[in-house]
C-alpha cells in the first residue's frame, strides 16, 4: 500500500464537458431546493402553509404512522405489571433514564400498576420550592432555547424559525382555522358571590370593586354552572382567585388582539423546555395568570428531541399541541404543551373535555378546536392559576 501510494504516478485527464455541465446543473438544483425550503408559502387567508421540511430522513419519518404507533405505545405501557416485577422493572427504568426515586409519591414502587402510571408519577410536597420571580419553570426539563419573537417568527433553533400565528392560531372570520368553539363549564357556583362575602372570606378590609376596577356588578348572572365542587369550597375558590388577581395586578381580558400585539415598551418573549423520557411529566403554571382559552391543534407526533428540533423545520407547528392562551400582569401569556411520539396524550386538569391523540380522520394542518374558560371565574374571565400550581401533564401514548 505504501509503495502504491508513493510510487504510482499521478496522471491528470481533462473531464469531458458533459460531466462539468452535469455538475453545474446538480449544484443549481441543490441551491433551488434549499431556497424553496426557506420560502414561506401563504394560503388565500395569508396564513403560512405548514409543510414537512427537512432532510430525507425526516421525510422517511413523516411517512410512518406515528399517531398509531403512539397509541399502541400507550396501550402497551398501560398493561398491568405483576406486583413482584414492579420494583425491579421500574428501578431499571429509573436507572436507565435518571429518575430520582427519592422524590416520588407514593415512594413504594409496587403501587404503580404500569409503566404508564409511573411515567405520570406525582412528586412529594415541598420537593420543588417555588422561586420568587416573575417567571418560573413550568416543568422539569432542559431549557432548549429562549429569546424574543422577531417579526412574528419564533426561533426553533439558531437559523430555523416558525410562525407565531401558526403556533397559537389566529381568529379570522370565515377562515378554516376555527372548527368549533365551546364554553367549558366548571363546577363552581359563583352566582352568590358579592363584595361582602369576598371581603369576609379574605378577612381583609377591601371590596371586590376596590380590588378590581373593571368588575361588572351583576357578574353572577352570566354563569351557567351551578354545582359546587365537593373537594373545593367556595371559600377556597375565592381565596385562590383573589390571590391570582392580586399577584397579577388584575387587568380585564385582552379582547381579540393578534398574537403579535404588544404594548409600547413591551416585547414578546419565548422559551422552549424539553422534557426527556426520565423527567417528571406533569406541568405547572409558570406564573400567576388567567387562562382564557385553549386551542387544540391535532397534528403529527414527531419526536421533539433536540436532534429532531435541529433538523425538522416547523416541528412545533406540525405536532399535536394545546395552546393555552390568556394574560398575566404584563399582558399576553401563552403556554403550549407539544406532544411527541411517546407522549401523545396531553392532559389539562381544568379541562375535562380535552381529548388528544384520538383515533379518526385528522383535520387539515393549522385547524384547531377552541374552548373558552370564561365560566371558570366570571370575575377574572378565565381559569386563574397561581405560580407552580399543577396544570396537567403528558401521558404515554
Amino acid at each position, binding site marked *: 500500500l505504501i509503495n502504491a501510494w508513493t510510487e504510482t504516478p499521478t496522471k491528470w485527464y481533462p473531464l469531458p464537458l458533459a460531466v462539468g455541465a452535469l455538475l453545474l446543473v446538480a449544484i443549481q438544483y441543490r441551491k433551488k431546493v434549499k431556497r424553496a425550503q426557506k420560502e414561506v408559502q401563504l394560503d388565500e387567508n395569508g396564513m403560512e402553509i405548514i409543510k414537512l421540511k427537512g432532510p430525507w430522513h425526516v421525510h422517511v419519518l413523516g411517512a410512518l404512522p406515528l399517531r398509531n404507533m403512539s397509541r399502541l405505545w400507550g396501550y402497551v405501557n398501560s398493561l398491568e405489571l405483576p406486583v413482584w416485577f414492579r420494583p425491579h422493572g421500574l428501578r431499571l427504568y429509573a436507572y436507565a433514564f435518571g429518575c430520582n426515586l427519592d422524590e416520588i409519591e407514593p415512594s413504594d414502587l409496587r403501587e404503580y400498576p404500569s409503566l404508564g402510571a409511573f411515567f405520570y408519577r406525582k412528586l412529594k410536597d415541598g420537593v420543588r420550592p417555588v422561586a420568587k420571580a*416573575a417567571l418560573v*419553570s413550568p416543568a422539569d426539563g432542559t431549557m432548549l432555547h429562549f429569546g424574543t419573537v422577531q417579526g412574528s417568527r419564533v426561533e426553533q433553533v439558531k437559523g430555523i424559525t416558525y410562525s407565531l400565528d401558526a403556533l397559537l392560531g389566529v381568529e379570522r372570520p370565515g377562515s378554516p382555522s376555527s372548527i368549533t368553539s365551546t364554553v367549558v363549564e366548571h363546577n363552581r357556583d359563583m352566582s352568590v358571590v358579592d363584595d361582602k362575602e369576598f371581603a369576609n372570606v379574605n378577612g381583609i378590609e377591601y371590596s371586590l370593586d376596590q380590588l378590581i376596577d373593571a368588575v361588572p356588578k351583576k357578574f353572577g348572572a352570566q354563569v351557567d354552572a351551578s354545582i359546587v365542587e365537593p373537594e373545593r369550597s367556595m371559600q377556597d375558590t375565592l381565596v385562590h382567585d383573589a390571590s391570582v388577581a392580586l399577584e397579577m395586578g388584575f387587568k380585564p381580558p385582552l379582547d381579540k388582539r393578534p398574537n403579535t400585539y404588544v404594548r409600547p415598551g413591551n416585547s*414578546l*418573549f*419565548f422559551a422552549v423546555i424539553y422534557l426527556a423520557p426520565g423527567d417528571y411529566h406533569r406541568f405547572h403554571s*409558570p406564573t400567576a395568570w388567567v387562562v382564557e382559552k385553549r386551542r387544540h391543534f391535532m397534528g403529527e407526533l414527531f419526536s421533539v428531541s433536540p436532534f429532531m428540533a435541529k433538523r425538522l423545520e416547523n416541528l412545533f407547528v406540525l405536532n399535536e399541541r394545546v395552546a393555552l392562551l390568556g394574560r398575566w400582569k404584563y399582558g399576553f*401569556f*401563552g403556554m*403550549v404543551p407539544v406532544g411527541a411520539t411517546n407522549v401523545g396524550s396531553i392532559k389539562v386538569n381544568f379541562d375535562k373535555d380535552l381529548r388528544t391523540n384520538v383515533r379518526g380522520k385528522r383535520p387539515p394542518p393549522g385547524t384547531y378546536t377552541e374552548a373558552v374558560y370564561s365560566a371558570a371565574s366570571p370575575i377574572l374571565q378565565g381559569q386563574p392559576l397561581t405560580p407552580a400550581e399543577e396544570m396537567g401533564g403528558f401521558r404515554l401514548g
Partner: protein
Amino acid sequence: STIVLVFEAPNDFEFTVHSGQKVKVGERLGDV
C-alpha cells in the same frame, strides 16, 4: 414532550437561565 412559552413582558425582562441548562418546576426562569 416540549413546552413552549410565549409571553409579553417589559423590554427589560431578562432570562436567568442559559440554553441547555437543566431546570426544575418552580425554578426561576426570568424576571423583570
